[in-house]
């Protein structure tokens, strides 16, 4: 029997009860939200369970929602069951003041750099990561550039001083 979104949902609810919320299926991919304390338990359960068997971490990254007070940072996991060819996605939200999330490195080697990248850009502190340092940005950087409080320059802004950009009169 092929693994369907309904079966996955049923199996997970059976195990974790009402802790998992916000079930959706945008563009066919099962998506849910979990409390951040449970993230490693869910990953482990998805990995170990015979029926579920999600053993490939496709992607891990974060999103910043400055308007969601108390849960500004969202870490998103994409998992793949290659045997049944099903993908799921789940999210954990965390406070930006204490962005501590358990690291998945004990389960997936590949989470190492993915988590370093997420830390690098969003400042998510992965607890239990063996080497949580910046990976793409310079080590001296003291902010997390992909957070929304650092807007990219607006191309239509009018306060631009042309002289600074090699245009206009000198």
């Amino acid at each position, binding site marked *: 029997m092929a693994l369907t979104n309904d079966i996955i949902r049923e199996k997970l609810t059976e195990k974790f009860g009402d802790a998992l919320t916000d079930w959706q299926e*945008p*563009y066919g*991919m099962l*998506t849910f939200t979990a409390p951040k304390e449970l993230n490693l338990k869910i990953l482990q359960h998805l990995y170990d369970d015979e029926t579920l068997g999600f*053993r*490939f*971490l*496709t*992607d891990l*990254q974060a*999103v*910043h929602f400055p308007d969601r007070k108390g849960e500004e940072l969202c870490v*998103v996991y*994409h998992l793949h069951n*290659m045997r049944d*060819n099903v*993908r799921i*996605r789940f999210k954990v939200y965390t406070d930006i003041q204490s962005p501590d999330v358990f690291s998945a490195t004990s389960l*997936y*080697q*590949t989470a*190492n*750099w*993915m988590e370093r*990248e997420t830390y690098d*850009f969003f400042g998510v502190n992965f607890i239990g990561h063996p080497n949580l340092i*910046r*990976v*793409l*940005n*310079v080590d001296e950087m003291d902010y997390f*550039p*992909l957070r929304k409080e*650092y*807007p*990219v*320059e*607006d*191309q239509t802004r009018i306060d631009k001083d042309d002289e600074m950009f090699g245009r206009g009169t000198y």
Partner: protein
Amino acid sequence: MNEHILLPEGSIEKQTNTLNLGPTHPATHGVFQNILELDGERIMKATSTVGYIHRAFEKIAERRPLYQITPLTDRLNYCSSPINNMGWHITCERLLGVQTPKRVDYLRIIIMELARISDHLICNSIVGVDSGAYSGFLYLMQYRELIYEIYEEVCGSRLTTNIGRIGGFERNFTNAAFEKLEKFLKEYPAQLKEFENLFTRNRIFMERTIGVGPIAAERALNYGFTGPNLRAAGVDYDVRVHAPYSSYEEFNFTIPVGSTGDCYDRFLVRNQEMWQSLGIIRQAYEKVQSFKGADAEVYHADTPAYYLPPKQDVYTKMEALIYHFKIIMGEIEMPAGEIYSAVEGANGELGFYLISDGGRTPYRLHFRRPCFIYYQAYPELIKGGMLSDAVITMSSLNLIAGELDA
């Protein structure tokens, strides 16, 4: 032994040598730094540093309308830009709910498979160069040139192609493009055969690559390997088959797999994939030729809100002018939603995770870059091997700095 070596006063006694391989080193084919701890010529430990050409594409993309993000994707894996471009267009089309006509799908497949060939031929011939066999590289390089000429006929540029638009192509393929494609299909197999003759059963090449930089399937999956590197370890995972896009389900091809995941297997898998790609291109070209009359003129979907209208229409038709203006000024709003869409890039699963809040630009865009993910296994692959093997392992993984650093 140490008592015979006269160390200067105050120097630290160290059993190993430290060597910097990179950031700019002719053998790394890109900007990578590896700090190696060597015992003689044997590597005891390696530490990778990346990010030398990080360009913050994910941040820049948050300020750009969809069509302006295509040129950013060019610069990920610049050896096969068209696959990145198409992957991005397909992501947008899935988000927007655009259905592409069959002819567009087939034309895209031709371009994507040409890109895969051009990527693999570079990788494999560079493995040859790094193992001391230069001529294979020269044999194949002229056909990359021919592939680039085909790109040029289709989109006007060669390396960073920005090929196609959301919904299709910017113009129909010219006859010259098809003629060049036919020339390629006719001449390349013989050349590839000759390349294989030079390498596949070459004693020196086999000695240099067999058992070098191996990885077991279990380990490769744990490290998140995809693409030829995973298939060389024996896992037949291919996005073209597992999550078909652009009508790949209509094509007949096999997924070559290796067994040991060493440099030699990776080389063989890539070579086989080139043959498979040639087969796919032939099938796609046949399908393209079967369109007659008005159907043979179709090269984009009918999505005026996202597809830039032809210039002559902009000057003569009201609607085209309006859409032109709206698209160029980035005033098209996209539906809210989130989507993960992947294509089989030349290096593996190239994924785009796009979150839209209903605005004109993505709220968040993340590229799943296969290079970035499998490069972290590199220290493990080269540990215990010779220094010269580390160089071959790096080139046979096909690391592209642009994709790694985004």
